[in-house]
């Protein structure tokens, strides 16, 4: 294969990674932006999405598309419900104190991970893609499912953006993000908004995992890398900024694929993590964010 097509392939793969990463990071970014909570358990909600997808498709059987569609509806709802319960039982009682919530979400991470290991087991299990249509390009065939991931992710991102900027719910969320006390004074049920946002953040992670699981596999430790990458994306993009998150996700997703072609994955991770730590040290508002108020 010549260099051009090779690059196209790498770019497509990078876009698939970016699409999934953008959704996951968006969840993390929303939770941080609105609630000021760093959700360390975010990666575990991602993992739960994938594991539930396996469980649901296996339980339903039949045509893979049927099970996948069912999983696409049911799994995010279950994950959202779990997140909502966690928010009500733990985060709310901590008054969303940043340090206490970070410790509590670390606790959640361990609990979810261990329960997944106990009930799901240490194996990596595949989920069949809903369809396996190959798009034939002049140089190589490409999985149609992967392209549909990019499309689905773009749709969800646009929908989230529309909800945030064009609807009443979005207005309420933005008001809470901007100044929760004043929002409360204007009769916005801030507590309920927080519950909803935390559940929504977890659901976005679960959907991202659902989309990616047919081309990877469901495993109880699969939440670790998305967590780290989402942190990187959210930090580079500026904490709590949707546009920055999407731009950073594309940047990281594309460069991740290309960098790991040339360097060993460990070295790539070292460089990326170090760079991001430096961004956080020297430009805490992110590369695309504006200075905080």
């Amino acid at each position, binding site marked *: 294969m010549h260099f051009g097509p090779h690059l196209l392939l790498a770019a497509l793969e990078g876009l698939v990674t970016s699409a999934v990463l953008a959704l996951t990071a968006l969840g993390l970014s929303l939770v941080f932006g609105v609630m*000021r909570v*760093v959700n360390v358990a975010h990666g575990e909600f991602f993992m739960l999405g994938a594991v539930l997808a396996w469980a649901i498709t296996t339980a339903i059987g039949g045509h893979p598309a049927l099970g996948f569609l069912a999983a696409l509806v049911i799994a995010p709802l279950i994950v959202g419900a779990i997140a909502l319960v966690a928010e009500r039982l*733990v985060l709310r*009682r*901590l008054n969303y104190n*940043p*340090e*206490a919530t*970070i*410790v*509590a979400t*670390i*606790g*959640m*991470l*361990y*609990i979810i*991970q*261990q*329960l997944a*290991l*106990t009930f799901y087991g240490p194996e990596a299990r595949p989920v069949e893609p809903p369809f396996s249509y190959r798009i034939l390009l002049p140089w190589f065939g490409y999985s149609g499912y992967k392209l549909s991931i990019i499309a689905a992710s773009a749709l969800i991102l646009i929908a989230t953006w529309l909800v945030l900027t064009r609807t009443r719910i979005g207005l309420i969320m933005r008001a809470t993000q901007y100044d929760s006390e004043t929002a409360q004074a204007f009769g916005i049920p801030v507590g309920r908004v927080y519950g909803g946002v935390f559940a929504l953040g977890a659901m976005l992670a679960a959907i991202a995992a659902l989309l990616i699981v047919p081309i990877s596999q469901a495993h109880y430790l699969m939440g670790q890398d998305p967590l*780290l990458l989402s*942190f990187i994306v959210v*930090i580079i993009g500026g904490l709590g900024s949707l546009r920055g998150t999407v731009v950073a996700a594309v940047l990281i997703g594309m460069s991740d694929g290309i960098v790991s072609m040339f360097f*060993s994955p*460990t*070295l790539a*991770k*070292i460089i990326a*993590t*170090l760079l*991001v*730590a*430096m961004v*956080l*040290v*020297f430009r*805490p508002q992110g590369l695309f964010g504006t200075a905080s108020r």
Partner: protein
Amino acid sequence: MSDASPVKAYALHLGVIALLFVLSFLLPEYYHGLLSRIMVLAVFAIGYNILFGYVGLLSLGHAMFFGAGLYGAGLAVIQLGWGVPLAFVSGIACGAVLALVIGLLALRTTGVAFMIVTMMFAQVFSLLILYFASWTGGDQGMVVPQPARVLTFGATSLDLTNPTVRYMSALALFSVVLLITLAIVRSRYGRVLIAIRENEERTKMLGYDTFSNKLIAVVVSGTICAASGAAYALLFGYVGSSFASVQYSILPLLWVLLGGAATTLGPLIGTVFMYYVIDITSGYTSAYLLIVGIALILLVLFFPKGVLGTIRQRWLGWLP
């Protein structure tokens, strides 16, 4: 508060050290070995507590300081063939230098950013260990050979693999670190640290250079954690990358929270308690992380001051 009772405070700490000394002769073999390990890890928790408890900086990356000590000492013995005392110093020096660099960078951030930055630096540290696998043994780790773990003073030699020697070395390290911490906490400097925790802006306004005070605290904390890591490598003979993983940044936080942040003896109590809980429950379930997770959540929800913090609040106000 602490001025009223210097005698009481020192008597209590010397009493704890004496108790640990006596326990060495009373405990059955298994618990004897366990307690040596706990004392070394309690030093790790004490180091963590200086930053978290007294300065109020929550680091999620202290495993890198423990790891710096562990590898600084372990590599010195295995790769360079250094003796035990020099290797121990090398481990501590590695930790101090790393803490200085990390402190200079990470202290530019505050709050949540500080936690994430420390976590990321620790991540880089543990990935570097994996990357230089030909030196560090990667995720397999390395065993420090038994003949290298002997202290020689002229004619007498101390074998660190002997359980009693090991216990006494651990106790010696623990005692020194505990008494140093007590002195620091009771000193003027210790009170400046607490002032920074309570209100950094006001401390600055009173004319204290908060940045350099915090930097010193990071270095002291990192050095103590490195001492713990170096002792772990030399006493227990295993140097592994799992000790530099995120989990080992979370564990000291858990121990300190459980025993009581900003109490000198809290780290020991937290470490002992958590170790025994895990030891007991490991008979029923292998999922010890589940217990760590539940303990973390229950602690922040219902018991944020920990064991000693609660005792100090309710009954013994003089407790350092």
